[in-house]
Structure formats: C-alpha cells, structure tokens
C-alpha cells in the first residue's frame, strides 16, 4: 500500500477561562467522517473544547477516541453533558449520542456560528464527499447538493494525486500556486484518468508543481460547476479538509468571482459544532416543556 502522504496535524483545544460548573446547558457534537472525526463541547452555546483527528480504519471507535481526546484535560466528564448529537458519514457509529442529524444540517448550523449570520453559501470539501449548502441567516438549510459517489473533488481524489507525485498533502496547495503561468486543467474529472494524464505530463517534462496546478484547476472547476447548479449567494465560506488547500481555494474564488470568508477557528469542526448547537436547541425545547 502507498506511503501515507495524507498526514496532517491533529489537534485538541479548550478555553481555559471557561468554567463548566457554571454552565446551564452543556452540549456536544461528534462528527465521524470517512477520513477525519471531530468532537466539540459547548457551554451555553459558547465553544468550550474540541478535538480533530484522523478516523483511521477503526471507525466504530473513532467517536469514542475523539470525544475522549476532547475531554482529556477537562474536569468535565461525558456523563455531565446534557445532550450529544452525532453526525457525519459514520453518524450511526456514535454510541454515546442521543440523536443523529445529517451532516448537511449540521454544517449549515456550524457554518452560521463560525462565519456569522451573513454566510449564505457553504462549500464543504471532505475526505470522501463534496457538499454545497445554501442557508439562511439562522443557519437553516434552504438548498443542498451533495456528491459522495465520485472521488473527483474530494480529499481522496487529492490524496491519489499527492501520492502519485510523492508530495505531502499539506504542501499541495502552496506548490500548485508556485507557477508562473496557469497551465490548462487536466481534461479528465475522473481521478483514475486524471492520474494517467498526470503521469503523461510528468513524462513530457512538466515539473510537479505544474501538474499540481493543472489538477487543482480541474478540481476547482468541477466544484464550481457543482456550486453553480445550486446557485451561489454571498457570503461564501469553505469548510473541510480541502478548504485548507490554498491551491484549490484560490482557483475556486477566482472562477466564482467571490472571496471566501476566513474562519477564526479550524473549519474542520463545522459539522460537530453544528451538532452541538442542535443539541442545545433540543435541551432548550425540553426545558421549556
């Protein structure tokens, strides 16, 4: 099997200034994706702690692992959390969740929190899927379009190319922008065929960064056509692993003629964040009686 070029930094964080014993509503969201998993803990709708790690091959345990990591340095225990919502591709595998909600709805809610009430269009480029979401000022979904059938436009598709070129995936974006002139995009959207095409380009003497530029351009274009099917309304934001790939992001922005909002926190936690917020709404509704 190929060397793992897709190692990016896992992280865990919490706000030391916050005190869970003073919180009225403690909720959590757990997003188990095909490639990465996140857990988010909120106190009265304020972000308290989160963890972001690779799902790995042990998907059923990923939820436990990422939640334990988020809780690791806290006095808070799992039992203290009032309501937990699971989401993501593996949302059926969050054993401690009280309920599951789709990633689409969670991403919209989380995006609304992260980027503010002006965000109307969210593009999430995940490990094995690509989602385009339109939402209102409260983070409610007004339209969505998801593609998890085809690897083109997903992290996996990018991995295949990074693997072929022996480039660590975190470096792909920067390298692809380091070209004097933008090359024509690879003609195939299909990752398998794009891989053959890339091999041919390398043989023709193209430097790696030029091949990456051609591939990022193709991926960006493909994603833009997906977005345009749904319609793009400002403000626009990008979440998910490929959202950290500047090569793809810049090209998407250029083709759309719209600049994406910059997140102040790790955009990969958007789903889990939305789940924790949904959980808060459930608790509030229950307490109202």
């Amino acid at each position: 099997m190929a060397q793992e070029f897709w190692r990016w930094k896992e992280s865990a964080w919490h706000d030391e200034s916050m005190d869970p014993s003073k919180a009225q509503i403690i909720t959590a969201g757990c997003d188990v994706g095909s490639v990465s998993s996140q857990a988010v803990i909120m106190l009265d709708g304020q972000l308290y702690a989160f963890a972001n790690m690779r799902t790995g091959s042990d998907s059923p345990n990923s939820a436990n692992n990422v939640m334990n990591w988020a809780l690791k340095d806290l006095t808070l225990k799992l039992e203290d959390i009032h309501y937990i919502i699971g989401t993501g591709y593996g949302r059926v595998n969050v054993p401690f969740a009280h309920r599951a909600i789709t990633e689409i709805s969670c991403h919209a809610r989380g995006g609304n929190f992260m980027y503010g009430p002006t965000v109307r269009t969210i593009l999430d480029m995940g490990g094995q899927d690509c989602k385009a979401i339109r939402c209102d000022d409260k983070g409610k979904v007004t339209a969505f379009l998801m593609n998890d059938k085809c690897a083109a436009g997903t992290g996996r598709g990018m991995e295949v190319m990074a693997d072929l070129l022996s480039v660590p995936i975190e470096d792909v974006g920067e390298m692809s922008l380091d070209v004097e002139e933008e090359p024509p995009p690879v003609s195939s959207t299909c990752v398998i065929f794009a891989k053959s095409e890339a091999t041919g380009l390398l043989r023709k003497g193209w430097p790696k960064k030029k091949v990456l530029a051609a591939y990022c351009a193709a991926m960006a274009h493909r994603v833009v056509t997906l977005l345009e099917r749904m319609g793009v309304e400002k403000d626009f934001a990008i979440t998910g692993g490929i959202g950290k790939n500047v090569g793809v992001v810049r090209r998407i922005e250029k083709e759309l003629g719209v600049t994406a909002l910059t997140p102040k926190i790790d955009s990969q936690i958007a789903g889990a964040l939305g789940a924790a917020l949904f959980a808060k709404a459930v608790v509030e509704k229950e307490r109202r009686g």
Partner: protein
Amino acid sequence: MITAGIDMGAKTIKVVILKDGQIIGRGNVFSGFETRESAEEALRLALDEAGLTLKDIQTIYATGAGRKEAPHAVNDITEVGADARGIFNLFPKVRTLIDVGAEEGRGIKCSAEGKVIDFVVNEKCAAGAGSFTESMARALEVSLEDFGKISLTSNKEIPMNAQCAVFAESEVVSLIHAKTPKADIAKSVHDAIASRIISMVRRVGIDQEVALIGGVAYNVGFVDALKRGLESDVIIPENPEYIGALGAALAAAENTN
C-alpha cells in the same frame, strides 16, 4: 484488395489487415504516451504477420478515441460505426452489441443490415469500463486474468456500496482487512460492473442476439456476470478486441472502388 483498420484505443492500439474480406494480420500495442509511434508499431506487427509492407495496403481507415492521430489513415469512422460493421461481418444476427474497453463502455443497437440504430456510451468514468476491474485486481494483488477466474469459484453475494473505482478500492481494502475471501470480493466486483453495463445497455433495449466485444470480453468473471445479469447467452467473437479495427478495415474496403 488489401485494406487496414487502426483502432486507436485509450489503452491499446489494434490493427487489422484485411485481404478480400479475410483477416491476414493483426497487431496490438499499448497506446502509451506516444500514440503515433505505438500505432506504427502495431501496424508493423500486423504487416509482419501478413507478410506485407505498408505499400501493399490500398486504404487505411482509423477509429477509436485517438483516431484523429492515426498515422497513414485517410479517413476515420466512429467507434460505434466500426463496432457495428465489424460484428455484422462475423455474426450478422447480432442486434445488441456491448463493447467494454479500458475507458469506455458502449451499448449499440444494430439493424438487420448491420447499421447502428441507436447507441449509448458510458464515458469518462472508470467505474463503467475496464479500468474498474483493473484497479480492483491491483487492490487484491492478483493478475487481471486470475481476478476473473477466482470470481467464478464464489457463490456468495457481498454488497459493494462504492460506485467509484477510487472508493471501491478502499472498500476492497477494508474487506480484505475483515478477512473476506478474495474470490467473494472478485465476484462482487464483477457483478457490480456487469450490472452497471447492463443498466446502460437497457437504454437502447436488449434484443437477441447479444454480443460482447472489447478487451474486457477476455475477463471470464465479467462474462459470467454479464450472462447471469442478462439471463441470456452472449456471443463473444474470437479476438474480441479487434472488432473495431476490423470494422474500420471493412469500411476502408467498401469505400475503395
């Protein structure tokens, strides 16, 4: 009269030399990245077998994805047209022709006169063509030939969720980790692609006789899955990957006079 047909396929280039309606030479070379050179090589192989030189050939027609790059061809015809002509020459009763190559799958409805009435193509997606089985064979670390063979030894159905060659590869790796027998995985892969091809061909209607051509026709696992899915027998001509080139050579002969 001696004519030749060059099928500039995505993965392999096939050449057929036809003398008075009989095939006297064949050549098959990987397309590679220098397709013109590969085509010349395939032509050389066919000429050697026929015991001829290039000058002896009156007309050369081309077909296939890269047909505009074919050397020495004076004209080119579509793959669909070439396929239909080729199969009509060998099996005139065929009404539904299925051609599965490395990068494309096609379904062609043929008339009693060997003309194309209708066709449907699965292009630009590896899951609908030979590249799919190749990727899966690689993931299982078996040769493509063995991949087809071992699938015949299984009678277990393992649902495969992934509809993309890249995701299916990951799915296969997980199945292997879970100790699923390779034969069962092989069967599921072949069933999946056969099912996709059949769904596609249904869009032009399936009428007897049904024939299968293209490189994937050598895959015994695929052929078995196709027959089961269609619930009918399928004609597979000898040297099924050459039918397109044959069609081109026949078209060249028809138009040389």
